[in-house]
């Protein structure tokens, strides 16, 4: 019948488009919405709208990150949740935690994240350094709302205390 083959055509098109979309969003880039104010003022500076950001997945090839990168990662205590925070420490760095009066070294293969808005941020200060394997992508641009569209800058604010990356032979 004419309508049956039309239906089949539409289904095939949808299937193909969704396969391609899924592959692109897994391997190259995707757009996610940011909830919560833990990265204020970089994202969601006011609580009325949610920002949408572009997340690139090319970094998952070699797992090379820099201090100040904003990344999306699965939560270590609940694999279904994802968080967006900024990388403060990379493997081998020493992190000083003012509220714990302690200095600790980020283990190999792990990293230390914190939200820009340290008052309302659940991050490595509560759950410790987390494995790099939990990272799902790096945030590069804000794409919505239009008045705040633009690159997400790497902010390095004097922490960690000492970093292996200061030495040229690291990695």
């Amino acid at each position, binding site marked *: 019948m004419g309508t049956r083959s039309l239906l089949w055509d539409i289904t095939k098109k949808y299937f193909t488009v969704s396969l391609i979309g899924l592959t692109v969003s*897994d391997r190259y880039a995707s757009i996610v919405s940011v909830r919560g104010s833990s990265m204020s003022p970089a994202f969601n500076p006011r609580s009325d709208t949610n920002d949408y950001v572009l997340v690139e997945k090319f970094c998952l090839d070699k797992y090379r990150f820099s201090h100040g990168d904003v990344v999306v990662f699965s939560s270590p205590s*609940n*694999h279904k949740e994802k968080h967006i925070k900024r990388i403060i420490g990379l493997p081998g760095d020493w992190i000083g935690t003012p509220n714990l009066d302690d200095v600790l070294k980020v283990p*190999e*293969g792990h990293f230390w994240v914190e939200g820009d808005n340290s008052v309302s941020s659940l991050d490595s200060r509560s759950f410790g350094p987390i*494995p*790099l394997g939990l990272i799902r992508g790096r945030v590069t641009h804000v794409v919505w709302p239009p008045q705040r569209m633009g690159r997400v800058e790497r902010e390095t604010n004097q922490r960690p205390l000492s970093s292996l990356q200061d030495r040229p032979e690291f990695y």
Partner: protein
Amino acid sequence: MNLFGNAVPWRSIAREALDRTAIVAKFLCLLHVTNTYVCTPTLVYGPSMLPTLNLTGDVLLAERVSHRLGKVGPGDVVLVRSPVDPRKSLTKRVVAMGGDEVTFVVDPRNSERVRTIVVPRGHVWVQGDNIYASSDSRQFGPVPYGLIEGKMLCRVWPLDGFGSLNH
């Protein structure tokens, strides 16, 4: 020789090349989606899962559905991303889930000392079947559930070992 004359049908060659490329691209997308969301073959080698898995390498079929639904439990052989080097994946057996207590021999080559630890919520404790030659949770601690990438279903190669992995 006039290469751009009307005798050579450039437009239809270009169209056919585009069509063929589109077919290949769609096939690669299908391959990616199957490998990431349905099941994928993995080559596993090393001594840490003897005698279940061979030293010189087995090809196992890893299914990638159960771990997204939370259906991974103790006794499963899983593919897990290494917490020490995120570029590598390990194959180990899940011994305990979040909230369980696990008792293990810390270093069986040198002493009989045992430790008991409670696995934090959202984490799993993995160990290789060959505890004498395995780097696992006894060295790097409990692993977040989010690092699990798949559950091993059966062995595909070598053919004489074909079939499910027995406990």
